[in-house]
């Protein structure tokens, strides 16, 4: 067993921290959140130059053939800096979908473009009510001659407003026999009939409503196979859940870096508040949560990398990280007191990130139920 990053991962982490601490300041995060600006292309290009988009992509498709664990290191740093933008939706949601579901031809076309930072994607799967399972997918794709016509509404689609391609999970059949009833479509975001609206979210991130009003796509736009989309999508969603945990790992570490120095410096009753046991115990619990989120996440990421990823792994990890990160922030708020409630204090950014990440790809209750299922309960 080995609980440390290897040398390459440490270098990756340092270079990410260097870039992001310069470029992704909390001022920048606030400006994106309040809509003052959009995610800058120059930063996207810098990230591409550092090879971040290539990590998951095999060398034969223009990638660098790194692995999920390496990608998790980058996501960890992004979480630390509360980074907004289309990296997750493009590289994790989009990249994984193409990798898991795509035909060789689709991989050959799309993956090199992702690797170079020239193709932004997102994944549209949730609908009204935000039901996670396959039963929640009602948007229909009906075959008309040589094309499919997509009609319905997708919600909570990350960065759909800036994506070149929206991967849409549509219902093409009933679930029966070998058909899982779901098909993934590569939909050009400029197609007629597509209507993208930004949703006003708590954190100011770019979650969108995407309305499909008889959007017509040719059969070649099916990502992978007709009526076989759910298996791939389910795998993508599980891995995306772990990737979200990597972001939470970084977020929780940042919360510690905000709160602990504050507890050492802030004086009340003639001594630092960190000298009071009630505060010390909150901080001890925070550290326990923060460290365990990290171990659970990197164990899951390692299992994905090693190809020994089981049904239960993602759910165990996501259920724990979701609830533990929320606890870290809640305790942090309690330690910091009134100042932490101020907009100008950075803790609020992580408070929002925590709830948002908790709900993405399934919250604690959802994943505990999946664990129960996997336990044969």
């Amino acid at each position, binding site marked *: 067993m080995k*609980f440390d990053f290897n040398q390459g991962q440490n270098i990756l982490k340092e270079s990410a921290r260097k870039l992001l601490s310069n470029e992704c300041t909390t001022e920048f995060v606030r400006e994106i959140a309040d809509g003052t600006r959009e995610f800058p292309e120059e930063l996207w290009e810098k990230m591409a130059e550092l090879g971040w988009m290539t990590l998951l992509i095999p060398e034969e498709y223009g990638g660098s053939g790194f692995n999920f664990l390496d990608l998790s290191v980058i996501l960890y740093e992004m979480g630390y800096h509360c980074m907004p933008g289309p990296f997750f939706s493009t590289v994790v949601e989009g990249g994984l979908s193409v990798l898991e579901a795509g035909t060789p031809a689709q991989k050959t076309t799309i993956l090199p473009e992702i690797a170079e930072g020239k193709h932004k994607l997102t994944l549209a799967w949730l609908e009204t009510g935000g039901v996670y399972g396959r039963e929640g997918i009602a948007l229909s794709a009906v075959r008309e001659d040589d094309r499919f016509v997509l009609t319905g509404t997708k919600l909570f689609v990350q960065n759909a407003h800036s994506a070149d391609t929206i991967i849409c999970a549509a219902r093409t059949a009933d679930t029966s026999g070998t058909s899982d009833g779901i098909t993934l479509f590569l939909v050009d975001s400029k197609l007629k009939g597509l209507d993208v609206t930004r949703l006003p979210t708590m954190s100011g991130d770019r979650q969108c409503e995407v309305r499909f009003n008889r959007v017509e796509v040719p059969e070649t736009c099916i990502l992978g196979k007709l009526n076989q989309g759910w298996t791939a999508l389910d795998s993508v969603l599980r891995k995306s859940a772990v990737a979200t945990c990597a972001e939470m790992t970084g977020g929780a570490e940042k919360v510690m870096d905000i709160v602990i120095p504050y507890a*050492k410096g802030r004086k009340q009753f003639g001594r630092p508040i960190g*000298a009071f046991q009630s505060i010390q115990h909150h901080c001890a619990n925070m550290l326990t949560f923060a460290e365990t989120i990290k171990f659970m996440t990197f164990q899951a990421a390692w299992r994905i990398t090693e190809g020994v990823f089981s049904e239960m792994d993602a759910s165990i990890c996501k259920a724990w990280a979701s609830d533990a990160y929320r606890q870290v922030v809640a305790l942090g708020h309690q330690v910091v007191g009134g100042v932490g409630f101020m907009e100008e204090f950075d803790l609020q950014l992580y408070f929002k990130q925590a709830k948002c990440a908790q709900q993405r790809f399934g919250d604690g209750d959802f994943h*505990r139920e999946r664990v129960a299922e996997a*336990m044969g309960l």
Partner: protein
Amino acid sequence: MDFDFSKEERKILDDVRRFIESESTPALLEETHRLGHIYGGPEGRTFIRKFAANGWLTPNWPREYGGLGLSAVLTAAIRSEMARASVPVVFVAAHMAGPTIMHFGSDGMKKEWLLPISRGEVEFALGYTEPQAGSDLSALDIRAVDKGDYFLVNGQKSFNTAAHVADYHWLATLTDPEAKRYHGMSMMIVDFNSPGIDIRPMKTMAGWQTNEVFYNDVRVPKKNLVGDMNAGFLYLMTALDFERMYPLAAFEAVFDKIVTYAKETEINGEPLSKNPLVRQKLAQLKIELEVDKLLYYRLAYMIDCGQTPNYQASMQKVFATETAQKITNTGMDILGHCSQLKKGSTHAAMEGMMEWYYRTSVVETIYAGTSEIQRNIIALRGLKLPSK
């Protein structure tokens, strides 16, 4: 990163499992239960000597001291197997005092003690707590006076579990009462057969026994002093860091039985396990068991890297023991009224063991430092928060 055992470790773990399966007897299990899973009873000694002959009690020790020169990860995994199988699992000599002797003991002391310890031939009992020194071990009062050739020890210890079955006392004494807190304490090894020692039982609410130990002019040879005079607090803290490394597998086994019970027990024509609340609770425990596993093996990994687990040991101890209590309390809730029934009742579930585990788990968050003390350690040592 690597979150798996090596091939060699796996093979040894298979052998360990097979050994335990074939060698553990009803008499051994009964004795272990009666003693509260400590080592020292006659059945346990017979079993462990055979077990330890394979090097399995201390596999991460060097070969010259009776180990196999393998990883601490393997040692931790073997301890888990022992805990899961309900054979003796608390080894003061092999897993607390031994590593401390290895770190701080003189060559003479290592030669004298480590081999017999690794073979399971001797067991120690911890001699820390006194009536006025519980969480605050710096308040020790038992005195060891330097008499030239020997120390003369007088005083009293309490809650010294295993003193009635062990061979030696791993004793924390005051050797310089004038020194400041923490700087006047020494550790020594005392033969329980020494004249002047009186061991009196204290019965716990779990049924097993702990002890008071009285010292009345007890002579302890100088060579039994561990490391340096008056440096004992460091040794005690180090041994505590090893002691806190807690294999939760005994409670994992209880958890597995609760899961089986929930699957097999029907209420209103439906298995309990189909109840959404039961499912959420059991899934959460499953998750916490996994979290604990990582905290546990992190400690072993640190030892393999040449470090002594510090606040990390406290973190695992709190997490494991609080999880143990959640498991037993959840078990009581899921079994309902039947959970209160002891072995022998025809209505008892899980062989009447649930209520015993519920009782015995109370002490887990108390000994080796309460959860509150552990959180102080995490805050002070781990986060460097100020003490005043």
